[in-house]
C-alpha cells in the first residue's frame, strides 16, 4: 500500500515538474520543443516563437493565412501576383479550387514538413501547374511535349512573381550582346534626395558639413577621440548628422536620454527603407518578430566559427562610427559567410572589378561586390519620390533568383547570358568563375514565335 502511494506521489511530482517545464518553455524565447517538425529555410530563424505564425491559439486556418499575408502580402502586391486569391474566389474558378485550393497559402506552403519541401518552400508535388494549364500547347505550340516540371525553369514562369521576365521583355532584349554596354551599378540617391522623404529630420539636421568643433554638447560624453575622427570621415558628418542624431532619444515625458548603443530604431529615422528591408530579410527578421537578434551560429549556411556569436544589427556590417560602405559590401559579408559561393568570390572576375574600383583603377560603381548582387541599389517608389536605395532584404531578389536578372545582372550582362548563368547551379556555387554550361530555351522560343509572326507579315527576324 505504501509503495503504491509513493508511486502516485512520484507520478504527481513528475507530472507537475513536466507541466512547469512546458509552461516555462511556452513563455520563454525558445519554444522549439513544441514544433512538430523542422521548419523551412525561410522561417527557421523565427521557429523558437510559435506566435510568429500561430498568432492566436484559438484560431483556425484564417489565423495562419493572416500571418502569411502580414509578412508577405505587400511583396505579393508589389509584384502583381499572377495568382492572387481573388482569382480563386472568382466563382468561375470554383472547379479549380477542388484541384488546388490556392485561396490559402498553406495549400502549397505547408510548414514543419522538410521531407516534402521543395524550392521556394513548396510542399506540393511538382505537377501543380499542370492541373490548370495542361492544354497550354494548344495556344503555344512551342510548349508541346515539355515536361510538367519545367514551367518554373529559370527564365520562364513563376506562380506568383512574373514581373522579372515576360515575353515582350525577352523579345526586346533578344539581340543584346553580353558585356557590350555601360558596365555600371546604379548610382544611389544623394542625401539631398533622401531629405525629401517626410520622415527625414531635416529641421533638426540640415545638410551641412560638420566637424568635431560642432560637437560641443556631446564631447563630454565621448571618451574616445578616435570615434570622433572616424565620424568626421563619414557621409554622416558630411550630411550634418551629429552624434545626437543617433545617440539621443526623446522620451514621452520630453526628457532626452543618451543611448550608448543605438539600434535600428535610431537608424530608421533617416534610413527607413533600408531598415525595413533589413527587418524583412534573414539578417533582421528575428528582431522584427521581437526575438533576440540572429547570430551566425543559428544559420543553416556554413558560417565562420569566429563569427558564431556575433549578433546581427545595422552596425554589425556597417561598423559604428566608421559606416564604411565598402567594408559593408564585401568584408562584412565574408566575415561570417563561409560557404563555397562566398569563399570563391575573391577568385572570381566579379571580385576583379571590385578590386579595380576600390584601388582607384576603375570608375565608381563599376565594381561587383557581394552587395552589388545581394543588396543592390534599386529604384524604389517611396511617397511621391523615386529614389535609388540599397535593398537590405537580401532574399528579395532570390525568390526566385531570376529576379536578380533585371535589377542586377543586366547592369552589365545580356539577358541570355544572365538567364543561363542563373540556371547553372554549379556556376552559382563557384561564384560565376567561367561561363554557363546550361541553356534555357526561353529566348529561343520567343525568337521562334517572332520569326513565325514576321514571316506571316512578310518580314524577317
Amino acid at each position, binding site marked *: 500500500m505504501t509503495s503504491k502511494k509513493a508511486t502516485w506521489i512520484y507520478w504527481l511530482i513528475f507530472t507537475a515538474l513536466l507541466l512547469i517545464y512546458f509552461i516555462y518553455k511556452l513563455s520563454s524565447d525558445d519554444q522549439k520543443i513544441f514544433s512538430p517538425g523542422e521548419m523551412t529555410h525561410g522561417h527557421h530563424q523565427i521557429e523558437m516563437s510559435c506566435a510568429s505564425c500561430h498568432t492566436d491559439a484559438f484560431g483556425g486556418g484564417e489565423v495562419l493565412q493572416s500571418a502569411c499575408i502580414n509578412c508577405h502580402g505587400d511583396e505579393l502586391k508589389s509584384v502583381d501576383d499572377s495568382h492572387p*486569391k481573388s482569382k480563386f474566389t472568382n*466563382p*468561375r474558378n470554383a472547379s479549380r*479550387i477542388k484541384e488546388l485550393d490556392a485561396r490559402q497559402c498553406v495549400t502549397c506552403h505547408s510548414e514543419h514538413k522538410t521531407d516534402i519541401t521543395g524550392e521556394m518552400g513548396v510542399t506540393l508535388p511538382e505537377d501543380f501547374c499542370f492541373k490548370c494549364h495542361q492544354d497550354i500547347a494548344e*495556344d503555344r505550340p512551342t510548349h508541346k511535349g515539355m515536361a510538367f516540371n519545367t514551367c518554373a525553369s529559370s527564365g520562364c514562369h513563376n506562380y506568383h512573381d512574373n514581373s522579372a521576365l515576360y515575353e*515582350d521583355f525577352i523579345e526586346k532584349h533578344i539581340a543584346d550582346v553580353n558585356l557590350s554596354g555601360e558596365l555600371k551599378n546604379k548610382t544611389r540617391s544623394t542625401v539631398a534626395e533622401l531629405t525629401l522623404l517626410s520622415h527625414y529630420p531635416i529641421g533638426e539636421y540640415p545638410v551641412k558639413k560638420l566637424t568635431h568643433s560642432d560637437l560641443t554638447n556631446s564631447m563630454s560624453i565621448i571618451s574616445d577621440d578616435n570615434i570622433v575622427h572616424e565620424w568626421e570621415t563619414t557621409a554622416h558628418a558630411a550630411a550634418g548628422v551629429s552624434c545626437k542624431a543617433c545617440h539621443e532619444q526623446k522620451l514621452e515625458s520630453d526628457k532626452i536620454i543618451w543611448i550608448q548603443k543605438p539600434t535600428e530604431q535610431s537608424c530608421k529615422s533617416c534610413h527607413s527603407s533600408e531598415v525595413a528591408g533589413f527587418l524583412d530579410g534573414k539578417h533582421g527578421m528575428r528582431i522584427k518578430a521581437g526575438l533576440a537578434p540572429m547570430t551566425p551560429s543559428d544559420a543553416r549556411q556554413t558560417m565562420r566559427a569566429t563569427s558564431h556569436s556575433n549578433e546581427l544589427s545595422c552596425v554589425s556590417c556597417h561598423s559604428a562610427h566608421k559606416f564604411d560602405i565598402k567594408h559593408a559590401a564585401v568584408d562584412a559579408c565574408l566575415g561570417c559567410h563561409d560557404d563555397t559561393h562566398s569563399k570563391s568570390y575573391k577568385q572570381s572576375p566579379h571580385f576583379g572589378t571590385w578590386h579595380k574600383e576600390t584601388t582607384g583603377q576603375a570608375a565608381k560603381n563599376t565594381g561587383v561586390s557581394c552587395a552589388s548582387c545581394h543588396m543592390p541599389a534599386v529604384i524604389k517608389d517611396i511617397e511621391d519620390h523615386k529614389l535609388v536605395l540599397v535593398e537590405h532584404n537580401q532574399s528579395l531578389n532570390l525568390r526566385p533568383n531570376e529576379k536578380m536578372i533585371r535589377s542586377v545582372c543586366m547592369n552589365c550582362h545580356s539577358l541570355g547570358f544572365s538567364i543561363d548563368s542563373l540556371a547553372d547551379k554549379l556556376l552559382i556555387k563557384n561564384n560565376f568563375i567561367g561561363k554557363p554550361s546550361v541553356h534555357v530555351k526561353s529566348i529561343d522560343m520567343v525568337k521562334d514565335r517572332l520569326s513565325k*509572326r514576321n514571316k506571316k507579315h512578310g518580314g524577317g527576324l
Partner: protein
Amino acid sequence: MDIKKIYFLAITGLATVLSGCSDGKVTGIEPKAMTDALFSVMEADRTVYTKLIIGRLAKKEKVIKASEHWKDEKALVLPAQMFRYGAERVAEKGANFNYSLLSLWPINQQNKPKTPVEKEGLKFIADNPGQNFYSEEKLGDTNYFTAIYPDIGVANACISCHNNHKDTPRTDFKLGEVMGGVVIRVPVKD
C-alpha cells in the same frame, strides 16, 4: 387569452420582425436589378476611361503610351487591365458579387468562356446585339444569378489594339461591334 395563444402571437410576431417581411413580401433588391445597376456603372466608367484617357491621350494627342507592361514602360494601364484590377479589389474586399471581362476571342486565353452559362451567354450577346443574357448556375456549392452584358468596341483604340495584338484570335473587329461580355455573378439561395 390563454398562455398558448400568447406564446404563438409572440413567436410569429418576432419571426415577422426578424425576417423583415411584415407585409408578406420579400424586401431588398432583385438580382437582375442589382446586376443591371452594377453594369451601368461599370460600362460608363469603362467608356469614359477608354475614350477620355486612352483614346484622347494615347491615340489622339500621343502624349503618353498605353501598355500592358505599364509599370516598366511608364505607360497608362490598358482598359481591360483597369477593369480587372477593379474587379480584383472588389473581390479582395469580400463584396457579395463578382465580375469578369470575358470574350469568345480573348487575347489572354484564361478569359475565354469556361462554364456552360458563360459559353451560351457570350454567344447569345454576340448573336443578338443590344441584348443582355440572364441565367442561373451552380458553381462549387453555390447557386449564382449570372448576368452577361455586351462589351462593345466604343473607340478606335479598342479595335486597333485587339486586331493588331500578336495573340489575338480575331483581327476583323469593327467599331460598335460586340468584342466580349461583362459577366456579373450574385450568389442566390436555392
